[in-house]
């Protein structure tokens, strides 16, 4: 089946700077795709080219089979967009705003059902500008969904939210999966990408530096685990058996080993410690988190 979004060699140049320096993307139907990167990495530039708001300097782009630079009304009927910054319609309630927007589409979703989908039933008759930040964002999502689009762009949907508002927003976005929508999400929060996405691409300095599922991103499944523990007084890292000493990565009161095969090394460590009657109460084995991977991948741009 044809991909929903297909990007080849996309470039966008502002003056002397390549904001987007040749990226490739492919997003399948029904996928929740996260475009992860620090501020200024080129996320919004890319998504606005895909939405048809910006022109590109080079490369090929199709969204739902159409070049967004020439997207017509029929194409816009199939695409919904939650913009990074857009306020509520002034002077209209939540329900009225949705009535206004539903009139723009040929086959809109049911208004009350859409209000319920984003959890604004209690606020349906509240004026949009009087909503809290989190509620306003949910109204944005409802307005993007009212036309029953196949593809939804969400540009940093939770920036500036408190933790509970973020949880609520995540529930709403996760609910789009059940509707079979394809979702293109940009975010600079690793936990958000990890929580929501089927697939993640990390962008830094206008280039894609890694792509994968939340579990495999940046070779995360291959990256070494770290084993940490504190030895009792009188015992040093030099006393460890040679196969563990070979894995030594640091000793500053606490010993750190890195290991591609943590089970083998933890086993050897346990055998050695038990034989000597040493307990290791703070023993800790850790895989790199997505955050570690992300910081590693985007470090050169800091």
């Amino acid at each position, binding site marked *: 089946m044809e991909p929903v979004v297909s990007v080849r060699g996309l470039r966008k140049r502002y003056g002397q700077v390549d904001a987007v320096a040749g990226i490739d993307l492919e997003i399948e139907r029904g996928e929740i795709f996260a475009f992860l990167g620090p501020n200024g990495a080129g996320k919004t530039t890319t998504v606005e080219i895909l939405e048809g708001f910006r022109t590109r300097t080079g490369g090929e782009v199709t969204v739902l089979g159409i070049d967004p630079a020439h997207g017509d009304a029929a194409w816009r009927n199939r695409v919904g967009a939650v913009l990074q910054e857009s306020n509520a319609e002034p*002077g209209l309630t939540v329900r009225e705003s949705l009535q206004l927007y539903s009139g723009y589409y040929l086959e809109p979703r049911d208004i009350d059902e859409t209000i319920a989908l984003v959890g604004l039933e209690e606020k349906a008759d509240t004026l949009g500008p009087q909503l809290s930040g989190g509620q306003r964002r949910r109204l944005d999502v409802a307005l993007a969904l009212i036309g029953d689009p196949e593809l939804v762009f969400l540009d940093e949907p939770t920036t500036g939210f408190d933790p509970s508002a973020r949880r609520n927003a995540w529930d709403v976005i996760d609910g789009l999966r059940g509707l079979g929508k394809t979702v293109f999400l940009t975010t600079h929060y690793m936990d958000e990408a990890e929580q929501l996405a089927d697939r993640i691409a990390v962008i830094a300095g206008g280039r894609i530096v890694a792509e994968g599922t939340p579990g495999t991103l940046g070779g995360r499944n291959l990256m070494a685990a770290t084993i940490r523990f504190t030895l009792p007084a009188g015992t040093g890292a030099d006393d460890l058996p040679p196969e563990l000493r070979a894995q030594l990565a640091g000793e500053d009161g606490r010993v750190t080993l890195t290991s591609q095969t943590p089970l083998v090394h933890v086993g050897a460590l346990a055998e050695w410690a038990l034989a000597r009657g040493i307990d290791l109460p703070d023993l800790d084995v850790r895989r790199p988190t997505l955050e570690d991977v992300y910081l590693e991948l985007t470090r050169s741009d800091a």
Partner: protein
Amino acid sequence: MKTPAARGPLAVVLHQARFELRSFLRNRQARFFTLVLPLLFLVIFVAVFGNDKVGALHLPAKVYYVPGISALAVIAASFVNLVISITVLREEGILKRRRATPVPAWVLIAGRTLTALGVSLASVVVLLLLGRFAYGVRIPAHTIPGLAITVVVGSISFSALAYAFSTAIENEDAAQPMVQAVMLPLYFISGVFIPAVNLPSWLSHVAQVFPVEHLSGGLHHAFAPATTGIGIVWSDLGVVALWGAIGLAFALARFSWLPKAASA
């Protein structure tokens, strides 16, 4: 039931105008400046000048000021309010979000212009009623078509100018002062506040370049008791419409739906 979009662009224009009007009526500041302030001006000018004979035709001030303030009311609804509202909607990303929908740009513009036209007509009718019942000022029945046509052409032209003028405004805070900086002097030299015969001729010549003078001139003509025919001054109407056409062309070339502040 078919949606407005399914019934065609004109249905969407009406749909848009209906919601724009609702939003306008809920905005206290817009209501005051557009609907109440012209009434206050009329009451104040009539209270001060009352039965003085003013203008080239030596009309009583109360007869003179109903059309003059009507011109102000049309401009308040179609230009002042519209420029401010467009700038706010643009800077808050609301116009951009509307452009992400399938609605053609001209439909959104036509819907908002229709709202301005409706408010202009309502505002002029209220001024007429106040003039009629508080001050006994009557408009000759045969010039009512001329009055109505002048208001309609004026409102549409000033709406087009509003879209053009908004392109020069950088942010929401600048909208109100910029609009007043342009309109207040024009009100003074264009027969809205002060009869043109009281101005030095060079100032009258300056005023005649701009559309405010021609809108107020057209409305004064429609109100004057001596006017015969349907009350249209084609030259005035032509100048107003020409300004509107220039505004429209400029807006088509320069108008942006995206916030200026964030277009990095």
